[in-house]
Structure formats: structure tokens, C-alpha cells
């Protein structure tokens, strides 16, 4: 794969990541305890279950391996790994 294609994929990932960062506060108020899917700087789906969300993305004919999925914790919840 050409370096330019790889860099383009990174750009898509970083755009999604930056969108989530900018809207983190809004998401934590709107979607506590949910999984969100972000594509093209938009929330394209929200579900309580991750597998249901992935299935929904597939039904949209999107490449799920390139869609960002993030779990939004409940307010005041701190997740340690």
C-alpha cells in the first residue's frame, strides 16, 4: 500500500478522534452508558450494546473497520483499566 493511502487513513481516523474530543462534554450529557459510532465527523449511530451498533453500521454499508466506536461512561464514572 502506498504511503499516501496510509496517511489518508490516518487522516480519517484523526478527524474522527478530534471530533469526539471537541464534543466530549456534549456526548457525556447526551449518551451516558452508550456506544457511539463516528464517521465523517458525525455521530451515525448510538446503541446500548456494542455488537448491535456494529451490526447497524454494517447495514449502512459502511466499512466498520474504519468507523470509530467509543463507549461514553455515565456521569461521574471513572473507568480504570
Amino acid at each position, binding site marked *: 500500500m502506498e504511503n499516501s493511502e496510509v496517511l489518508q487513513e490516518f487522516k480519517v481516523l*484523526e478527524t474522527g478522534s478530534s471530533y469526539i474530543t471537541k464534543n466530549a462534554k456534549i456526548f457525556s450529557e447526551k449518551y451516558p452508558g452508550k456506544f457511539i459510532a463516528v464517521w465523517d465527523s458525525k455521530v451515525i449511530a448510538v446503541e446500548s450494546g*456494542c*455488537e448491535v451498533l456494529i451490526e447497524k453500521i454494517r447495514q449502512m454499508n459502511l466499512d466498520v473497520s474504519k468507523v470509530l466506536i467509543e463507549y461514553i461512561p455515565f456521569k461521574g464514572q471513572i473507568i480504570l*483499566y
Partner: protein
Amino acid sequence: MKYLVLIREVQGAKRLVLSLLSRQPRSFGSFEAIIDTGSPRTVLGAADSIRMAIPFGKYPQSKSLSGFGKGSVPTVEIGNFLVALKSADGNSKYLDISLVVPDVPSLRNGDQNTFNHALTLPTLIGMDFLEKNRLKLVVNLPENESYLEDV
């Protein structure tokens, strides 16, 4: 060579986030990983493994992960997993890393609370990634700067 690490809020807290592309045959995809120096191993998150269609049957069982939320989580070991990193000067570098992955098929057939919990956990870059790839981690939180650098 330097690789920028993003300091951003993930799951309600500020984390060190590295962007990666999987170049693993039949499991291409992009994902973010949290650099976790408290983890000895690099762990591919269950959700990322489903997104990238990891063929679990191909890989051997590994040690269970504990201290990972609810109970212990069965895993498989992927000895060679090809990823791409983006350098600060706009090039890419390929690394062949080893990682463990929560065993999604086993979890699916077990306790649903444990499975659901595993799906909330992100991909983690552990100490093994830094050590084996000879990468230095620099973190400057007051100035919101972090990067990895080849040693």
C-alpha cells in the same frame, strides 16, 4: 523518529492516545490505543477485534486477563500483528507486534455482563510494546505534549 501521541479525553478522563492502522491480512482497519504503562501486555480491545474481524479460531489460547473489571477474561495470543504508525514528519512505519485479545467467541457464550463489560474496554498499549519496539515515551501534561520516539 517521533510519533505524536494525542492527549485527549477518552471515557471521561484524559488519556494518552496513539493512532494505529492494522495491516494484518484480512483484518485491516484503523483504531486508537491508550498507552497504559500499568499494563505489562498490549491488549486489543474486544470491540476493535470485532470491528477488524479477527479470526479467533486461528490463534492459541493465552493467559486470562484479570484486574480487568469483572472477573477474569479469557484471551487469545496473536504473536505477529502488523500495524502502521504515523511519524511526526508525515511518514509511516510498520511494526510487527504481539498482543492478547479477549476471546470474543468464548465471552459471547458466557456471562453476558462480563462480555458487555469487556466490550467497553479500549485497546491498550502495554509496556511490552514500548520495550520490544525500543520506543521512548515522553509525556508533558502541563504543555499538552506527548510523543513516542525511537531509541
